[in-house]
C-alpha cells in the first residue's frame, strides 16, 4: 500500500485528459501530466505566455532562448502550434476556452474553494502569476496534490485556512491516496489507494467523504522520481 509518488499522481490525472482538449498545466507537478497522456489522445497544451501547443522540452542541441513556456522552461512546439500575446492568452483563459486546467494546491475545500498560493509567505514577496485567472475561468479545474501536509495535516478541508486563489472552482482532486470529486453533495471518492481502508482515508481528510458505489482501487505503473 505504497502511496503514489508525484509522477504517478500526474500519470493518474493524465489518464483522464480527453481527446482534442485544450489543456493548461500549472507549474510544478502538473506540467508532468503532459508526459503521461494516453497515446491515442491528441491535445493542445496552452501556456499563459501565449504558446498554444507546447511540445516536449527542447533537447540541449535544440534550445532556443525565445521559445519558452510560462515556467521559463526551454520547450519545443508541437505540430500545429501557434503563439499569441499575453493579452489574447488571458482572454482565452477568462473567456472559458480552456477545457481543463490542472493546478497544484495547498488546500481544497468541500465547496471547491482553492488555496494554491500564499500572499503571506514569511519574508517573501507575493507570487500570483496566472493561477487565479486559470482557477476562476477554466471550464474545468482539477488539482494534483499530496493528500496531507508534511506534518500530516489534511489538505482537503471543510474550509480553506490559507488565502484563496479562487472560489468554488475545483471539481476533482488527484492525491497520492485517492481520486476525489468535489460535487454539490460533497466530496465523493472515485478511487482509493489499493489496501487503504475507508476509515484510514477519512482520518487523513478534513471534510466528510462519500464513497462512490463504483469506487475503484487507485493504481499507477511504477515511475521512479528523478534524483
Amino acid at each position, binding site marked *: 500500500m505504497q502511496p503514489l509518488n508525484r509522477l504517478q499522481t500526474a500519470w493518474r490525472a493524465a489518464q483522464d485528459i480527453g481527446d482534442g482538449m485544450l489543456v493548461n498545466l500549472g507549474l510544478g507537478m502538473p506540467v508532468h501530466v503532459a508526459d503521461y497522456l494516453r497515446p491515442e489522445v491528441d491535445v493542445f497544451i496552452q501556456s499563459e505566455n501565449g504558446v498554444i501547443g507546447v511540445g516536449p522540452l527542447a533537447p540541449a542541441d535544440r534550445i532556443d532562448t525565445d521559445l519558452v513556456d510560462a515556467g521559463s522552461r526551454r520547450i519545443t512546439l508541437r505540430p500545429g502550434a501557434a503563439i499569441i500575446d499575453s493579452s489574447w492568452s488571458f482572454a482565452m483563459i*477568462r473567456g472559458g476556452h480552456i477545457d481543463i486546467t490542472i493546478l497544484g494546491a495547498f488546500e481544497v475545500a468541500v465547496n471547491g474553494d482553492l488555496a494554491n498560493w500564499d500572499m503571506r509567505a514569511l519574508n517573501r514577496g507575493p507570487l500570483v502569476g496566472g493561477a487565479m485567472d486559470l482557477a476562476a475561468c477554466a471550464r474545468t479545474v482539477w488539482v494534483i496534490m499530496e493528500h496531507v501536509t508534511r506534518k500530516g495535516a489534511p489538505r482537503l478541508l471543510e474550509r480553506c485556512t490559507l488565502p484563496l486563489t479562487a*472560489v468554488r472552482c475545483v471539481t476533482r482532486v488527484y492525491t497520492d491516496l485517492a481520486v476525489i470529486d468535489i460535487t454539490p453533495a460533497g466530496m465523493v471518492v472515485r478511487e482509493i489507494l489499493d489496501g487503504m481502508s475507508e476509515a484510514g482515508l477519512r482520518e487523513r481528510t478534513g471534510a466528510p467523504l462519500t464513497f462512490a458505489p463504483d469506487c475503484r482501487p487507485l493504481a499507477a505503473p511504477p515511475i521512479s522520481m528523478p534524483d
Partner: protein
Amino acid sequence: MPIDKRAGTAAEALADVTDGATVLISGFGGAGFPNVLIRALRDRAPRDLILVVNSATHRYSYTHELIEAGLVRKVVCTAARGHSKEPSPFERLWMDGRIELECMPQGTFTERIRAGGAGIPAFYTPVGFGTDLALGKEVRRFGDRDYVLEHAIVGDLALVRADTADRYGNLAFRYAQMNFGPVMLTAARLAVAEVRVALDEPMPHERVQVPGTYVDRVVPVGA
C-alpha cells in the same frame, strides 16, 4: 519628411525620460526582456520610477539593476518573489517599506494595460473575486457571477524587445518574445523597442505583428 524611427543608440532613444515616469517593461518566461534598454535607463538614472513589469525581478531580466540603483519608487507586477531561497534585494526593500508593491493576477495585469491602450478606463473581471486581492474593490454581479472592478494602466514609457523592425517602426517578434510587448506599446506615451535588426526597407506587410504607428523609436541591438 520620410519617416525613420531608428535611433542610433539606446541612450539616444531614452534621452528625454524624466523622473517619476511610469515605465512598462515587457518580458516573461525568459523571453522578450528589453535588457539593452533597461541598462540604458539605469545609466540615464531617472528617479522615482514606477515599474510595470510581470516579474519584479527575473533571472533573465535586468530590472533588478534599476531597483538596486535606487531608481524605483513602486513596482506593479504579478510576481514579486526572487528565485533563490533567500529574499532578493527587491524583497528586502519591500519588507523594509522602501519600495511600494502592487501585485495582481497576470490576466488582470495584461488586461489593465490593454485597456489603457484601448480607451477603456476600467473593466469588470471574475478573477480575484472572493480573494484577498479583491479587498476594497468594487464588486458587481452580472448574471449569476460576481466581478471585480479593475482600472486601466497607462505609462509614460514602454520598453519592449522584438526581433525585427523596419524604418517605420513595424515590429515582428520571435516565438514567445511577444508576451506583453504588443499591449505595452499601445499604452505608453513613448514606445521604444529594441530589436535584433532594423531593416532599411519596409518589412513585408504580412510579417508585421505590431504596426509601426504604435512605435516611436526602435534601437537595433543585435542578437
